[in-house]
């Protein structure tokens, strides 16, 4: 152990340890979120949700995961093999990279990069590409239509997402997530930038392909979208990435607008997780409240409402900062 650390250097060793921690957290988070999703869905529909396996059905996701692992991994004959195999792995890269820069607590961060938010946004564009690979590689028309829809949607919503984050960056003069959290010691940015927060939240729901913007995987028309042809462990990877993405967008919202790890009495990590999971709950709540939008409506919301509003907000912020 000592030898390894001395060989690769202390900093690198710390980063690797952080990455392992992130992996554990990703799996744990996905387990909790699948359980929470079913529980929330149940209670919203006046059911109880899972309750048989463990207390309150808490061990249900582990049972599900075991079932998924035990399933036969099917590979349809007509798939484009390299793309088909690579896509589930590639969709995981942006997820892991994003966790590197998110500050969970004042000192609990794998690496504070001074272009932190750009790292997250840049690598999240990779997930678009892997969705495209999955859709193309599956050689299935549902998968392809789902992938194309997903990409159109992601492109349309990435712009308001960026534009909603920019005012905060202008106010703090920094891309580093930690600096942004530190700048919110007094008042959270959501009070300065309520509009930006709303725009970011809507866009992030669309970015994660959740209802009401879940057209890429609309099960009533497209079977399951781009992961129609995936089974067993590969499907589980897509699933894991999806749930982790929900957490990541919530975590960014918390970091940018809701004061990050800052709060009274409790330690920072508790505050951070509390706020993040509250936003995750809101995203789940949306799923069982709103019907799915039509595709033209989806694109119109972004291009005709969110982007102009975000631009106006950006201009106003720039003007007010200079006054």
């Amino acid at each position, binding site marked *: 152990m000592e030898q390894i650390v001395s*060989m*690769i*250097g202390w900093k*690198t060793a710390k980063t690797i340890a952080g990455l392992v921690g992130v992996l554990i957290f990703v799996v744990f988070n996905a387990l909790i979120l699948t359980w929470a999703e079913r529980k929330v869905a149940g209670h919203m529909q006046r059911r109880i949700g899972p309750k048989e396996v463990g207390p309150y059905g808490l061990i249900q996701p582990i049972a599900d995961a075991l079932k998924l692992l035990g399933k036969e991994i099917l590979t349809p004959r007509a798939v*484009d093999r*390299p*793309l088909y195999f690579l896509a589930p792995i590639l969709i995981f890269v942006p997820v892991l990279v994003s966790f590197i820069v998110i500050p969970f607590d004042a000192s609990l961060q794998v690496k504070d*990069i*001074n*272009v932190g938010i*750009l*790292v997250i*946004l*840049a*690598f999240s*564009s*990779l997930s*678009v*590409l892997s969705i*495209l*690979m999955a859709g*193309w590689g599956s050689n299935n028309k549902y998968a*392809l239509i789902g992938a*194309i829809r997903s*990409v159109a949607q992601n*492109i349309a919503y*990435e712009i308001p997402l960026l534009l909603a984050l920019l005012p905060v960056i202008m106010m703090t*003069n920094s*891309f580093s997530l930690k600096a942004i959290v530190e700048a919110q010691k007094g008042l959270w940015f959501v009070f300065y930038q309520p509009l930006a927060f709303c725009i970011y939240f809507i866009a992030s729901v669309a970015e994660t392909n959740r209802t009401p913007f879940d057209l890429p995987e609309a099960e009533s028309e497209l079977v399951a979208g781009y992961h129609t042809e995936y089974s067993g462990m590969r499907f589980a990877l897509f699933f894991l990435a999806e749930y982790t993405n929900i957490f990541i967008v919530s975590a960014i919202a918390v970091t940018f607008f809701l004061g990050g790890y800052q709060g009274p009495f409790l330690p920072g990590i508790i505050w951070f997780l509390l706020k993040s999971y509250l936003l995750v709950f809101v995203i789940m709540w949306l799923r069982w409240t709103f019907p799915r939008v039509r595709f033209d409506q989806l694109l119109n919301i972004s291009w005709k409402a969110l982007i102009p509003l975000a631009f106006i907000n950006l201009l106003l912020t720039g003007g007010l900062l200079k006054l």
Partner: protein
Amino acid sequence: MNFGEIIFLLIIIVTMGGALMAILSGSIVYALMGLVTAMFGVAGLYIYLDSPFLAMMQILIYVGAVSVLIAFAVMLIGPLYRRPKEWTTAGKFGAALGVALVTLFMFVRFVTGTFPRGGNPFFDMTTKEIGRLFFDNLVLPFELISLLIVVAILGAIMLALFSRGNK
């Protein structure tokens, strides 16, 4: 050879492999994947050259925007399109060889030539400095570029609308 150099060599290999895949592979989708790999490699090189901001911009613009656009065009054109006989004639091969030699010669000449070193060694290529330069010395080109983008977007929309109205 330390850890950083090994990764640097890996990045070089990945970049070259991606570029070769982009030009040699028969399927457009694989060519696109190669292009994306090469772009990632170049972004990695930017990090080694002390410009992490530009590296992120590279990924954001090339991987996030340009290659996705190309992928869209491939989806609109490729799947319906009968694969052409792509491969090359002797004349083209000769031309390619010529281009390769001339370019390589020029670059070797450039690299072995004397190269003035200047400026302060503790120079920091921060995002702030880049921003300052944009709004200080280079305001006019910056505004012109944004005008160019607007014109291009309008042009693309016009093309799309025109083709729809034609049907």
